[in-house]
């Protein structure tokens, strides 16, 4: 019997003593039905498919260990690739017809924007497990909606800080982002932060090729002719793969420093096509070679099992999925405790989740009053190493989310304009040296 089992037994025993066991037995559901929206089709399935694999693996292990005080988690998966409208009707069906009380949604920021107000209306606990738009929680206060990971501001401000730390003397920058909400919004935050910290920087080109563009040759020719000191691209998936491959084939990385905040999710696919010296991030501190957690038993076991199952190393959406599920389980445990052992209402869990700290596989995450999770950001520089067919991220630096997230009640577009250069010398920032390849 694991710790959870023990706790459950203890709760039952206490319940029996105080004569509430009848009520407890009534309230406690046979299983906790949760809905998980993830991309099973479309370009974003590069995130959705590993995310789903992570959910399956975690839930299987969690249920085998006894679930939430004996209540097992029963997931239903919805495909975000259906598009916002279809997803919304599937979401409603799950909640209204099948009585699902907890939803993990979504990957796409567009879908989070659509679903958050609906979740609030339906009074269903919605954990935004992977989307990054900061707007959703800044523009409205929710009771039932939380995010168990960082947001675009946390990520972009940290990226600017890392860039300024490792390459303080650049003068010109160009951007090649995907032409949709994330590409545009991430650039706006990045640019405003950069201008606050280094106002003399010159933006020499802003290019937004179509989402899913099959070819970046022309953009790369133009960048090669412009020779900016720094090139930013927050692209991901096939788009990022194409850009990096073409940039690397044509020696762009020799002329400019590439800053690719989502490169971690493409490293294993791209392999040796990734040049050395690219500044890269991972939307959090999720990395199987995390300097603080690479030998952590829980993390190591999860990575090994995930690799055995999918033949790939876990990428950031895997970690985000585990975070959402851990947060959910811990939210329930805490709410049950506060409820004197009785199964909590959805409201109680949603309330509890705003005031707790939990750990997924890497650094703990503190949840804020507005439902936003504070997720520390890690960035590094690509470097080919012997014994691994794809580069590692070297010179890793962890920037705490408290430094890079707009405070509760403030809006990111205004807040980032107020950040001060002193931020860069904060003693809370941790830097590490060489990243060794995995031992096996």
């Amino acid at each position: 019997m694991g710790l959870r089992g023990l706790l459950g037994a203890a709760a039952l025993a206490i319940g029996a003593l105080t004569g509430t066991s009848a009520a407890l037995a009534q309230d406690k559901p046979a299983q906790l039905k949760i809905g998980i929206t993830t991309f099973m089709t479309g370009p974003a399935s590069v995130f959705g498919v590993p995310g789903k694999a992570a959910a399956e693996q975690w839930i299987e292990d969690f249920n085998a260990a006894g679930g939430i005080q004996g209540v097992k988690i029963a997931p239903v998966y919805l495909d975000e690739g259906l598009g916002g409208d279809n997803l919304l009707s599937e979401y409603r069906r799950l909640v209204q017809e099948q009585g699902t009380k907890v939803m993990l949604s979504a990957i796409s920021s567009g879908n989070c924007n659509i679903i958050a107000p609906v979740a609030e209306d339906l009074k269903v606990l919605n954990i935004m497990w992977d989307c990054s738009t900061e707007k959703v929680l800044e523009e409205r206060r929710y009771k039932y909606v939380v995010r168990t990971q960082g947001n675009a501001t946390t990520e972009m401000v940290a990226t600017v800080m890392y860039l300024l730390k490792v390459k303080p003397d650049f003068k010109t920058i160009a951007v090649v982002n995907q032409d949709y909400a994330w590409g545009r919004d991430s650039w706006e935050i990045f640019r405003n932060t950069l201008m606050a910290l280094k106002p003399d920087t010159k933006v020499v080109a802003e290019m937004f090729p179509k989402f899913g563009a099959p070819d970046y040759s022309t953009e790369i020719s133009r960048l090669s002719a412009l020779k900016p000191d720094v090139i930013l691209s927050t692209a991901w998936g096939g788009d990022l793969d194409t850009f990096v491959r073409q940039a690397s084939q044509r020696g762009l990385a020799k002329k400019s420093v590439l800053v690719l905040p989502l490169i971690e999710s493409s490293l294993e696919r791209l392999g040796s096509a990734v040049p050395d010296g690219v500044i890269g991030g991972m939307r959090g501190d999720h990395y199987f070679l995390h300097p603080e957690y690479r030998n952590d038993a829980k993390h190591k076991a999860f990575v090994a099992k995930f690799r055995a199952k999918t033949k790939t190393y876990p990428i950031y959406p895997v970690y985000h999925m585990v975070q959402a599920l851990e947060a959910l389980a811990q939210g329930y445990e805490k709410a049950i405790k506060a409820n004197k052992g009785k199964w909590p209402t959805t409201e109680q869990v949603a309330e509890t989740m705003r005031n707790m700290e939990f750990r997924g596989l890497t650094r703990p995450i503190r949840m804020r009053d507005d439902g936003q999770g504070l997720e520390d950001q890690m960035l590094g520089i690509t470097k080919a190493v012997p014994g691994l067919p794809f580069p590692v991220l070297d010179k890793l630096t962890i920037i705490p989310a408290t430094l890079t997230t707009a405070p509760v009640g403030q809006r990111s577009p205004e807040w980032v304009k107020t950040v001060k250069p002193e931020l860069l010398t904060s003693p809370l920032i941790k830097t590490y040296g060489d990243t060794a390849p995995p031992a096996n």
Partner: protein
Amino acid sequence: MTVDLLLLALADGVSYAGLLFLVALGLTLIFGVMGIVNVAHGAFFAFGGYTAATFVVALSGPDTPAIVLLLALAAAAILVGLVMGTALEAGLLRRVQDKDPILQLLVTFAAFMIFEDLQRLIWGASPRSAAAVVDSLGTLELFDVTYTRYQILLVPAIAIVAYFSLRAFLRRTRIGKQIVAVTHSREVATALGINAKRIGWFTFVIGAMLGALGGALAAPVTSLVPGVGTDWIVLSFSVVATAGLGQITGALIAALIIGIARSIAVYTMPELEVVVPYLIMVGVLLVRPSGLFTVAQARRI
């Protein structure tokens, strides 16, 4: 925009146009002979690309000569064109030959969606590529900008070769002349003893091979993802519509116009990049509703 930049834009545009032309050529050829706008053409592109990527990844080692990899691309295009072209033509399109064009369009659209799912079933959702081909051919410098030989020389060269071979084939060979005859008038050609069914199959397979060749040639530079075929069908349709349906030389010129205009847009007004092909198409169709190069006669090839 300086002369240097204009020349760079031209180089990029021509390279892009090469690929676009190959895909559009297959589409326009099939329309010319069968009178069908084949939406499933995008699936030929995707399957050609994925098959090429699979071949190249299987073959490429540290010392694989470039020619082996290039032959692998060609083999992928031929194989996909033959198998999928035959399956679609004999299995489906021949049966709707005399039906309403809208129905034919819907049938090819349905086939396209089925192929998309099949593609996901076979290759999954993770991006694929055949980058080894580009690496094996090396790079060259043009005004201090590095280009890959593959994109700047090979792709346009293959497009030109495809154009001239197809023209020579249609004019000089027996079967080519039969294709032209069927294009001209199916009924008369049949009355003259031409096996229109066989010609239909043959043309369709050639068209499918061209679509697949486009995909195979794109595989080394792009990332193949689910949905990759959709983009190309839309783009190549804009080329075909600009040129006039069934126009081969027209397609070459339209592909060049669109390719170059697009790359100039990237250099000067990147915001316009995506709409440029469609602006050109709309502009042309407003002035010449049946396309730039359609002549006032029944003959289409």
